[in-house]
């Protein structure tokens, strides 16, 4: 065991201990504190589960998870089949379009939908103008709106994971079924679908758990009876009311436990059922079906239908970004660059903060992620699997848990929260696994003999890393960097708890402008600007990494 590796391991562990384990344990312990005393006990949890309101909130969140999962599955299954199996022109373009919401912030989509489908939104106004309805229809405010917007946002996770499953199935497994006498639907139900189930589960977990982490979308739609939303309201607005504060903390802990528990359970199950590892000689693109004209038309229509919804988001935000007073009229009538003047000239600090915080977080990410990836893939340092496990676990933790725990842990004792460094630090910890996963994946593709050859030629471990590994890892690392940046750039659920005057980022600016009301144009312009920045970054990734999302997310379909 080399001493260098042990040193790296020690440093990484201390980072994890200080910035992951310490604050999260702090949060856990705090949730057992009996308000107003120094004693600890189960009182908070008993209160939570005895209070019909919190029980209802819990039930609502669960129901939302089930409904969103059901919707994305129903809509996504045919879409995944089309994308994975049919030979169609322009499939790459449609794929990119349909998967776009993955990198867009969920709240951007929510704003766009309100403008379009709100009570005085474009659709309602048009319908009333044409005399088709007399009173506006409630398209989005309520559970159905939440299901709609979250399903739209999460559809890519389901589509990516199922279509990866379809592609990975060895064609001969289906051919064997065909020869054995199963045709069409029968084959699909008995062979294709069961074989896809591990992939599906990987995506389904992300989708199902989303309502346990997203506090903002329900608030935008005028709902607060969901676990993360009520946690946010209780902690951010009622921190002086001890009861509400502790109910908020308990909500965060319960959401986190559910997320981590389900995440781990599914991971164990998926690993036990890795079907693809069994068969050999899989073709690269899997089974491709030549379609008849009828099927083709349907496939295109279906893809187009979903692509239109996705495209509505940037279009609506763009319209509101370049206009003013888009109220009570179906389309904006007053065009202006005023919103952008505000963003760029009057409050440039938001943009600056966003870039600086994301860049510093990125720096932390690389400094931590590269050695961590090296340690996990290339050494046998004791405890490295545990390190990998803890980092991976961060995928499951809701951003709100990171935010609240930092607020609690770094206030007194270690008063980091009084310095702006807490902002990039929390972003880095929140997105810890992303960069690591990608560096990890590129490391696995790098044949170890290339490095061994360098060492045999006389280069030390560090020289080998600089001369051989890094140049070969560069592409994967770069894609990881950009994706990390995109994720940090749009982060809000952690930052919202930690920002103080002067530390506002673009996403926080969007939230505040919406929250104060009447400033929708500015919020829209900010969201639009964010989409443009993300899009430019994505183009860079696509240029370098090839295949925008495939490269960035791998074939396993999302956050695994």
């Amino acid at each position, binding site marked *: 065991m080399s001493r260098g590796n042990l040193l790296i391991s020690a440093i990484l562990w201390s980072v994890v201990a200080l910035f992951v384990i310490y604050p999260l344990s702090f949060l856990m312990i705090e949730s057992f504190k009996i308000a107003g005393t120094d004693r600890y006990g189960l009182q908070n949890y008993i209160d939570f589960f005895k209070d019909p309101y919190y029980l209802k909130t819990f039930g609502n969140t669960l129901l939302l998870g089930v409904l969103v999962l059901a919707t994305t599955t129903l809509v996504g299954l045919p879409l995944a089949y089309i994308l994975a199996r049919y030979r169609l022109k322009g499939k790459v373009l449609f794929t990119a379009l349909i998967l776009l919401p993955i990198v867009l912030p969920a709240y951007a989509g929510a704003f766009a939908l309100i403008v379009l489908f709100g009570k005085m939104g474009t659709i309602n106004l048009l319908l009333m103008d044409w005399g088709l309805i007399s009173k506006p229809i409630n398209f989005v405010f309520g559970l159905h709106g939440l299901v709609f917007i979250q399903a739209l946002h999460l559809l890519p996770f389901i589509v990516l994971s199922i279509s990866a499953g379809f592609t990975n199935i060895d064609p*001969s497994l289906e051919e*064997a079924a*065909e*020869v*054995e*006498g199963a045709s069409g639907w029968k084959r699909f139900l*008995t062979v294709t679908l069961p074989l896809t189930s591990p992939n599906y589960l990987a995506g389904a977990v992300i989708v199902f758990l989303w309502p346990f982490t997203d506090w903002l979308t329900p608030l935008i739609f005028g709902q607060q009876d969901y676990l993360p939303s009520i946690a946010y309201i209780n902690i951010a607005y009622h921190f002086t009311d001890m009861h509400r504060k502790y109910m908020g903390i308990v909500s965060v802990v319960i959401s986190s436990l559910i997320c981590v528990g389900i995440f781990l359970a599914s991971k164990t199950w998926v690993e036990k059922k890795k079907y693809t590892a069994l068969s050999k000689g899989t073709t690269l693109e899997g089974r491709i079906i030549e379609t008849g004209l009828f099927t083709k038309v349907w496939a295109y229509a279906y893809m187009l239908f979903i692509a239109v919804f996705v495209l509505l988001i940037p279009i609506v935000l763009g319209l509101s970004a370049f206009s003013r007073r888009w109220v009570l009229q179906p389309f904006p009538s007053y065009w202006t660059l005023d919103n952008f003047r505000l963003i760029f000239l009057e409050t440039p600090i938001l943009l600056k903060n966003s870039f600086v915080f994301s860049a510093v977080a990125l720096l932390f990410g690389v400094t931590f992620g590269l050695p961590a990836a090296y340690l996990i893939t290339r050494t046998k340092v004791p405890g490295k699997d545990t390190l990998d496990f803890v980092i991976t676990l961060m995928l499951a933790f809701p951003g709100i848990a990171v935010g609240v725990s930092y607020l609690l842990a770094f206030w007194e004792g270690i008063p980091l929260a009084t310095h702006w460094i807490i902002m990039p630090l929390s972003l880095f910890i929140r997105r810890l696994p992303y960069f690591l996963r990608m560096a990890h994946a590129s490391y696995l593709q790098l044949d170890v003999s290339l490095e061994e050859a360098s060492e045999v030629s006389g280069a030390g471990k560090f020289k080998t890393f600089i001369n051989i590994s890094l140049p070969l890892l560069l592409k994967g690392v770069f894609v990881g960097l950009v994706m990390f940046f995109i994720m940090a750039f749009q982060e809000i659920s952690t930052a919202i708890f930690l920002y103080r005057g002067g530390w506002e980022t673009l996403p926080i600016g969007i939230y505040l402008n919406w929250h104060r009301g009447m400033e929708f144009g500015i919020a829209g312009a900010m969201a639009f600007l964010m989409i443009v920045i993300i899009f430019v970054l994505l183009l860079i990734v696509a240029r370098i990494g090839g295949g925008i999302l495939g490269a960035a997310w791998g074939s396993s379909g999302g956050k695994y």
Partner: protein
Amino acid sequence: MAFIKIENLFKKFGTMVAVNHIDLEVIQGEILTLLGPSGCGKTTTLRCIAGLERPDEGDVLIDGKPMFSKGFVPPSQREIGMVFQNYAVWPHLRVFDNVAYGLKLQRLPKEEIKRRVNEVLESVGLSGLGKRYPGQLSGGQQQRVALARALVRNPKVLLLDEPLSNLDAKLRERMRFEIKSLVRRMNMTSVYVTHDQAEAMVISDRIAVMESGNIVQVGAPEEIYKKPANRFVADFIGTTNFIPGEIAEIRENQIYVTTEFGQKILCKVFDSATAVPDQKVHVSIRPEDIEVYAEPSGSRDNVFKGTIMHRAYLGNFLNFFVNVDHTMIRVQVPYHLRQKEGEELYLYLNPEKCIALP
């Protein structure tokens, strides 16, 4: 009687012609092997029989019924059993359910399914493993599951696509005999695809050798080995020496071939219908058909002097690489011969075994 009839089958992928207008008949109850290097069209032909591929032209008749020309008959309606190269055993189903899959689709009574599956599992040597998942089986056992699944429905035709290529050498050799005796016992018309000529020799009643989409020769293994139709077949099946030359003289049932260095070789095997004087040919003779002598014995034909360039010990025999007038000839001799590299010896190329190939 021809049970499977392939008529004028043609299939191309893009511009690449995979199967080029072939005709072939498989007789009831026989095991016919499609043999050839990768890309010769053997698997495509097999997949057309299965219905997994649709030919661009031509037809396949199974038991007299056309599979393509009178409306496409899908694989599920063809009553075939197929063993895939990578087993294609469904990983999410237990061994029993893998094998029972086809029977369940036929909606047979539970008792009968159970009986038949257990019977076939026993015959492939897997009794007692029905409850296992494929992931818990070795490669060889998975192979047996695939075989059991293909046999259990008593299909009209059994198709095997390189079923042994993923097994290790020892197991592969054993499975050849097992598959053959099993298929024999069930008297099933079988088409077997392989690129391994030794496998083809062991398993087949007849072999169809394919090269770039064409069938170049069909015959019993012995016939193909002893009388290859052209250089490709001679080269592909077993090991052989090619000695280039020209036909010098044609007699009733033998010809003389002059080599580049003026030596004359007497060949007794040739196609008398097409042979013409001065035609360029290659004389093919297998290493084991060459005898070696320390002294020239009498004044026989086909005795040549050469020098041993390499001597390779292979356990049960020796290989000499002998330089005869700048032509390297490989000879297989008994292992006890003492000749060393650099020594001279005499080769006798038995004319009965010398084949002149265009």
